[in-house]
């Protein structure tokens, strides 16, 4: 084998095993979603089976699946907007706060992200029910989710804003921009990869969240996908595996496409604060 060929094949030798390992769950989901339920348990029918769309039909006609998807999207988008509105100015301010205060504040804010929902859902359920009166309403999720998306977004954006030279803003100010104008016209456009990262990350985090959603929402029509699937597709001991796989596969395809479309910017967003 020539050196050129080896050089050509080397990236594939690394990437292909990863791709197979990472892609296999999706393949498995797709296969299982097309199996009749009685063949899911049959070890002789792993690859040879009669494909059917029955699980998709069940999902669409016998559950509130489409409504769960809508609910997830609605909550996700609302939380993304709230997170950006709060985290962008906060991240910028902390990035420009020179010295120990900025760093300490940044770390302190990030630490709040590390408090798990399993510790917070009980006290928060009192807040949601008694003070906000938002039990079983999607607004409860829209209000609570920013408590963990904002800290992470601030921390992420802070690192990103730090990579933007102060001189650019100074130049804008000299040219007559206000501080806000410099932010909107200079800093934010340059920070687009970081902002996109926050958008994708926040949206993914929200549509995957389970503990708060199961705690604050009880009616089927107000559920999000992560709660609706295990609740309505698992009957006691009986798992509707084809239905579950179909329910997971459907939203993961557009999410995978979005990730792929913005992959370079996503990586730039995450590593923005790492290389200065």
């Amino acid at each position, binding site marked *: 084998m020539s050196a*050129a060929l080896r*050089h*050509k094949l080397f*990236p*594939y030798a690394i990437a292909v095993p990863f791709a197979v390992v990472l892609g296999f769950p999706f393949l498995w989901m797709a296969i299982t979603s097309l199996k009749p*339920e*009685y063949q899911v*348990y*049959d*070890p002789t029918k792993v690859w040879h089976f009669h494909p059917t769309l029955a699980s998709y039909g069940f999902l669409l006609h016998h559950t509130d699946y*489409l*409504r769960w*998807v*809508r*609910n997830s*999207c*609605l909550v996700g*988008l609302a939380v993304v907007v709230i997170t950006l509105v709060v985290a962008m100015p906060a991240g910028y301010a902390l990035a420009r706060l020179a010295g120990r205060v900025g760093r300490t504040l940044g770390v302190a804010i990030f630490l709040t992200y590390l408090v798990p929902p399993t510790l917070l*859902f*009980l*006290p928060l*359920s*009192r807040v*949601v*029910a*008694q003070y906000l009166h938002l*039990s*079983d*309403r*999607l*607004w409860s999720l829209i209000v609570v989710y920013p408590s963990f998306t904002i800290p992470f977004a601030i921390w992420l954006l802070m690192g990103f804003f730090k990579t933007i030279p102060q001189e650019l803003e100074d130049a804008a100010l000299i040219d007559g921009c206000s501080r806000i104008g410099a932010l909107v016209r200079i800093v934010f456009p340059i920070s687009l990869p970081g902002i996109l990262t926050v958008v994708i990350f926040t949206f993914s985090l929200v549509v995957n969240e389970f*503990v708060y959603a*199961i*705690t*604050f929402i*009880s*009616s*089927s*029509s*107000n559920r999000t996908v992560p709660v609706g699937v*295990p*609740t*309505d597709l*698992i*009957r*006691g*001991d*009986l*798992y509707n595996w084809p239905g579950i796989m179909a329910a997971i596969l459907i939203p993961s*395809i*557009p999410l995978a*496409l*979005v990730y*792929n*479309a*913005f992959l370079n910017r996503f990586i730039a967003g995450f590593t923005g604060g790492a290389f200065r």
Partner: protein
Amino acid sequence: MGQETDGPVASSDRLTRRELLRKAGAGAVAIGVAGTAVPYSFAGPLRYKGRDLKGDLTIIQWVHFVPAYDEWFDKTWCPQWGQKNDVQVNVEHINNTLLDTRAAAEVAAQSGHDLFFNLHPMASYEDQVINHASIVHEIESKVGKYGELGRLSTYNPKTKKYFAVSDNYVPDPVVWRHDLWNDIGESPATWDHVRKAAPKLKAKGHPIGIGQSQEVDSNMALMAFLMCFGGFIQDEHNRPTLYSKHTVEAVQFMTDIYKRGEDSTIFGWNPASNNNYLYAGTASLILNAISATRTPESLNLPFSDELWIWPIPAGPHGRIGLEHVMGCYNIWKFSKNKENAEKFLADLCINYKAATTASQLYNFPSFPGAFPFAGIRKAAAADSHKPHGKYSILTTIAQRYTHNIGYPGTTNAAMDEVFSKYLIPQMFARVSQGKATANESVRDTMSVVKNIYAKWRKRGKI
């Protein structure tokens, strides 16, 4: 291709692919956004059209494993009861594993459903619920005495309070593959038979399927197993008695069964794992409710006719089983519609024959007079699945071998905590995994159990 990553052509190719994906992604997002615009995303539950009912009643319960039961409950029983009593009944179902979390959240918020159903008696919430005595008395006046199992599970003799009302319980038989056991000339009549058969069955690729994980099926199976060996978590006066030679012997025995005839997956099981193990044709024996046989029947699995159900195997101390699940309704003190909840619960228990039938004999009435055993036996005998009459044994299991959690004492707050923290499966698993000797594991667990009992005794609940 790959080596041209810096070239203009490759760059152009990559942009084209990105462009395609971007458009596809944007399209998907657009569909999602459009979907969110539907206004009824925030809508509440539907009310009866053209009818303005005076009262409300909210109920939360598990997603029953028999779809027909939920169908009957949601679409027949509740609407009919609602119409009759002028009450709007809203039922919400959640996965059974999430009920405890939900209960904790409702108590923390002091707000929630009027009727809260769980699959085990929530004795530790005694201070959060009303005394259900009047409901019990109302039901007893119509259908006769509360079953002993229900009373021991929901009544606190110390505080003289009914902290729940059990509408049903589910017998817990051993489910075994007759064909596989027959091949080796054995049957699971006693635990000794199980131990002897275990290596032979495992060698044929069909291990025993008794879990040692932090989940309800492992909990029930191992607690019942303990009792068959004379090991009891508490005595009839609700005093902890776990640390005994019988318990140590039982733990050692189960370790032996594990080593001879199980595999390590049992330490990570969830409540459905033993079922799936059976449905996949792997397990030769599990302890489970009849969901384990009903599902293969409904899916027409090739071995469904070979699934036999028997009472729990006998141990040195006899054949002592537990209920598989104990359906209990609770009315919170903060419930907004207590009267409706009380009446609903009483009416449900009084008319439980329809519920038992709708559940395909999964739910047995906790008030036996609502559907006497003779009637259940007749219904079971009429079941057409093979081997014919296999479900008839359920009534024998229910009458003779089904006991409450905490037997020979009552189900109480301390017992509830021991149960909810899965201390017994952990005690077994530590030994099976070689992390402790049987004596050490039982002794350590006993010290935790003692602390739990001391705490609840201090609070005046036992």
